[in-house]
């Protein structure tokens, strides 16, 4: 598979603080990647390094198998970082024209991309008069100007209203469906769950998980149980190798599975042991629970 970005043992220190610690991963063509992590976990710093605005302390990264210099590679990349940064006194069209000059792209692309994000009728308004949603969409148009091989988005829905968030997500999905590789950094889990195929979880600059989103979620699930014979049930579960761990919250017992088992098998087992259940639910963890588990427990 063709690799677009390779990061090897990347480290960034800001004085005493290590923002990114020995991070390695590879972005392959055609997938939608999510970088998940709480605020301050090093997402933006990592993106800043590969985008040539933050200097690395050690380690390496290479674009497109290292065939070009970073700033030439960036001409094939479309990226927006947190806030849309444009010249407030220029119109939307003029701002994009400037980006065309930097990226050596033909001006005919401007109207095309403005149409994609639905800003064609506002192209002659000054950037400072745009709403935040419009600014963000202009940023996406700007990132798409060069028909990039990879689109990098850092918190693209930050500070937007629900409609704005919806518009941006629809746009991202549309772009992804056209085969553009996307790297999306976010702390919003459902955003990543809805949009991404692969995920990288960071905490304090360290990689906690890297792989497919569905594999991350696909643990064997857990049972939520209640019974009058509370003590018997807990001791049975704790001694059974099929369960990794058992949690008690008041009457509710949560038992995490070590291997696949469906609810009816479990129910039958309980019946044989003479334990009657008053409550039995089998559930799978959401990305959110999985994420919290990853970021809290380690």
């Amino acid at each position: 598979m063709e690799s677009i970005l390779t990061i090897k043992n990347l480290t960034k220190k800001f004085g005493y603080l290590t923002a990114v610690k020995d991070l390695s991963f590879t972005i392959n063509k055609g997938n939608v990647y999510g970088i998940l992590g709480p605020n301050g976990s090093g997402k933006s710093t990592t993106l800043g390094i590969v985008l040539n605005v933050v200097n690395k302390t050690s380690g390496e990264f290479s674009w497109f198998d290292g065939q070009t210099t970073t700033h030439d590679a960036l001409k094939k990349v479309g990226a927006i970082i947190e806030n849309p940064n444009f010249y407030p006194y220029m119109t939307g069209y003029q701002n994009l024209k400037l980006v065309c000059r930097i990226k050596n792209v033909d001006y005919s692309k401007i109207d095309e991309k403005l149409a994609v994000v639905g800003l064609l009728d506002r192209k002659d308004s000054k950037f400072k008069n745009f709403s935040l949603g419009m600014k963000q969409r202009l940023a996406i148009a700007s990132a798409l100007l060069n028909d990039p091989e990879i689109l990098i988005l850092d918190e693209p829905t930050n500070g937007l209203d629900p409609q704005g968030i919806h518009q941006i997500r629809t746009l991202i999905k549309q772009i992804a469906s056209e085969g553009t590789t996307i790297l999306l950094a976010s702390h919003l889990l459902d955003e990543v769950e809805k949009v991404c195929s692969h995920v990288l979880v960071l905490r304090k600059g360290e990689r906690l998980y890297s792989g497919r989103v569905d594999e991350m979620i696909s643990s064997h699930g857990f049972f939520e149980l209640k019974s009058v014979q509370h003590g018997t049930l807990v001791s049975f579960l704790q001694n059974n190798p099929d369960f990794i761990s058992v949690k008690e919250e008041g009457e509710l017992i949560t038992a995490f599975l070590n291997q696949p088992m469906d609810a009816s098998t479990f129910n039958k087992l309980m019946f044989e042991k003479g334990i009657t259940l008053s409550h039995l639910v089998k559930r799978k963890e959401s990305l959110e629970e999985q994420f919290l588990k990853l970021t809290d427990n380690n």
Partner: protein
Amino acid sequence: MLRLVKLELQKLLLNRASVVLIFISFVLPFTVLILSSIKINFFGFFTLELGELGIFNFPIIWHITTYFAAFFKLFFAIVVVSMIGNEYSNKTIKQNLIDGLSKKEFILSKFYTIVLFSVLATVLIAVASFFIGLYYSSYNEASIIFRETEFLLAYFIKLVGFFSLCLFFGMLLKRSAFALAFLFVLYIFEWIAFWIILRATSSEIAWKVKNFFPLESMQNLIKQPFQRLIMTKYPENIDMAYDYAVYWYELVIVLGWTAIFVFLSYRLLKQRDL
């Protein structure tokens, strides 16, 4: 190169404040020059014609016009520091780099624009001086007209050097107002350093050292023309004689500072996390 200049010109010419300042820095010295060259009649009491003083004679006109026009460089200096300050305050510097402009190209686009502006300013002052000189000067042999045109070269180098200093201060401090204030601080600092050396050694050595300082070396390129004017009026005053010529090593010092400032701006940008 053309791409980088176009890039910067778009940033400047669409910004109303920069356009006004650029316009002023071109037009104001020109207007002053034209106004001073016409005969002003003060309500019939007396007429003032600066041309009568001989300031528009070749070759001294090159010295006079470049000396006075250089004061108007401050207007474009504001443009230079604000073109860096704005990039930082709008965070567009970050976006420019992300879009694929290299850090070197970023600095070069600013520097090329500085050079372009200095060329235009020099050409403008040269043309204006030439025609006013032709009108007033009693000499019209080419050898006299084009004598001392090295003042134009000095003027050009002086502008490039001064704007490079502004570029560096802009990059260093990220804010236009601080950068301009720092120019003043540097001016005071040069005098303090001069005073310290003066105390430690002699006035001769202190001046020699001060001529190497950035602001003084630029100032020193075109020396004040007043003494020279008086000399031409009263040639018998031998004690007024001084050396007003432009020397190659003075040009080299300013060019050296220009190179240092541009390089330091680049180093600063390269090492900084945006």
